[in-house]
């Protein structure tokens, strides 16, 4: 089981900020066992878990894993059409939610699922004729590769990968049993899930809230429940600056972590100083959902000396740089970052049939990121080989955006960490304006980070391929 149930049964595992209810390790363990019994099936099953940051979601997720099933974690606010598509592609035997998902409920009913009494503090749906399609015995958790685009591509994780990453993170961050992390990120997001898993793995506590840093109640929760740890993406730290976080009185907060894209050096240094002055620690981290969550963590006391670094490989993992197919751990060589460790995914999935497949990577992940190691094994990231943008921490596959716009005419999409720019050989101000709004809806991204630019002809290479380098130069 992921939670360390050898923990003193009276120590708190979860706090539900909504009602202030505390779930001790004893109570959580019992609830997971009861729920796992109820979820028991003769055959290993696929369970969709519609996530909110509340105890019922955590219990549903942990119980499904404990029952030996495979769990796909989804946003409870998932769009109806996206959920319908996923139900058709993956045909889960069970769907669990902690509360009635607004748009989701009718999609679930329309796909032939009937409500089932589960007594697990949530709602369950089952479909008798669902399933078919064997699940690989190792498959524990499925996480979305993209938080926003509604892509059907998921990462297949072995249960052992999830537990191993949780323990490595707990060690690298020196999480102790008295720590209380606030759930500042969603559980269906690998980083948010890793905060939960790493704290439960060593007997610490997670305070669950659906509120975010832009809401006063969130800070009331952090202060009131004496949270010691906060996790954020680069955008979270921009928000914290805007709301005057440096003047907040939070005496118990001693750990802040940052992942989900590169935070600029100025802010890293500022937050490092701020936390150091309060006797706390600021951790810069690097990871991918393809590695469960975490790949590297920069020890807090390496700052400001190693400013700009994404950290050292987590315990049990190894970083190498690959140049023209040859991997090396020599310093100062730039190439593709390759990570080897027990937390690497089994592979991707786009439908039920993929869930029967075993490990396809052998614990070795080509990250698609470019970078180099220094003489102390600290990683510095310089770019990406894959066409992926992380706009404000949201991962956007540029080829996917391009495919979405392609029916309108020739399109080439490039992106930076601030903006996505689509160059279009079609449309006028009005029609491109409408497409921009449509695209922002489809990607769940604010329209101001999306630009559609009209061009007469896309720049092309002699081969006829789009010259992305030329377009990127226009965007920088």
């Amino acid at each position, binding site marked *: 089981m992921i939670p360390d149930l050898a923990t003193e049964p009276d120590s708190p595992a979860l706090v539900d900020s909504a009602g202030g209810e505390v779930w001790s390790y004893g109570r959580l363990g019992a609830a997971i066992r009861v729920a796992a019994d109820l979820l028991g099936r003769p055959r290993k099953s696929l369970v969709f878990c519609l996530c909110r940051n509340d105890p019922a979601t955590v219990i549903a997720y942990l119980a499904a894993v404990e029952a030996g099933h495979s769990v796909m974690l989804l946003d409870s606010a998932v769009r109806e059409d996206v959920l319908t598509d996923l139900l058709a592609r993956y045909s889960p035997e069970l769907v669990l939610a902690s509360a009635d998902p607004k748009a989701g409920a009718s999609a679930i009913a329309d796909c032939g699922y009937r409500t089932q009494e589960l007594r697990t503090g949530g709602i369950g749906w089952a479909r008798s004729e669902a399933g078919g399609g064997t699940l690989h015995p190792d498959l524990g958790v499925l996480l979305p590769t993209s938080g926003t685009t509604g892509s059907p591509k998921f990462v297949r994780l072995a249960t052992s990968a999830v537990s191993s990453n949780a323990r490595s993170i707990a060690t690298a961050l020196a999480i102790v049993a008295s720590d209380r992390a606030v759930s500042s990120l969603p559980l269906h997001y690998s980083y948010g899930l890793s905060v939960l898993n790493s704290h439960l793995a060593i007997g610490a506590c997670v305070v669950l809230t659906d509120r*975010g840093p832009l809401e*006063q109640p969130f800070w009331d929760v952090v202060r009131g429940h004496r949270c010691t740890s906060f996790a954020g993406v680069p955008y979270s730290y921009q928000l914290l600056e805007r709301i005057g976080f440096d003047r907040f009185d939070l005496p118990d907060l001693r750990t802040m972590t940052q992942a989900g894209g590169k935070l600029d050096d100025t802010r890293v240094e500022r937050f490092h100083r701020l936390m150091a002055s309060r006797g706390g620690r600021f951790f810069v981290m690097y990871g991918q959902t393809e590695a469960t969550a975490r790949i590297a963590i920069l020890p807090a006391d390496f700052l400001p000396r190693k400013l700009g670094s994404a950290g050292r490989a987590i315990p049990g993992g190894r970083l190498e740089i690959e140049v023209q197919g040859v991997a090396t751990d020599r310093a100062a060589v730039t190439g593709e970052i390759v990570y080897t460790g027990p937390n690497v995914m089994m592979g991707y999935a786009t439908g039920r049939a993929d869930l029967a497949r075993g490990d396809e990577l052998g614990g070795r992940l080509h990250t698609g990121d470019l970078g180099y190691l220094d003489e102390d094994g600290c990683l510095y990231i310089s770019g990406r080989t894959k066409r992926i943008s992380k706009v*404000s921490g949201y991962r956007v596959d540029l080829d996917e955006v391009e495919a979405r716009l392609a029916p309108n005419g020739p399109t080439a999409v490039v992106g930076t960490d601030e903006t996505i720019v689509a160059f279009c050989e079609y449309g006028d101000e009005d029609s491109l304006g409408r497409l921009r709004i449509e695209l922002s809806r489809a990607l769940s991204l604010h329209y101001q980070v999306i630009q559609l630019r009209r061009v007469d002809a896309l720049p092309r290479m002699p081969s006829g391929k789009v010259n992305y380098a030329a377009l990127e130069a226009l965007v920088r």
Partner: protein
Amino acid sequence: MVTTQEVNLPLDRLREAFVTALGLPEGYDVTGLEYRSIVEWDSLAHLTLVTTIEMTFDVMFDTTDVLGLSSFSACVEILKRHGVTFDG
């Protein structure tokens, strides 16, 4: 007849600021909106909204204002504190 003064009433300007900042269709009824009640008003859009309202009304929001901007009606109250008057 619609006069310039009428369309520039503070409430209309605030509605317009919401529609623009959140990227909503023209004429969208924003008066009942709450933070995160629609996908368009997420944390990403929130700071844009704050900036748009600050510019529209030439005010500066402090921490309490930014964290308190939890709905359209809360925004009206915040702006009143900043001396903006809403009639009717």
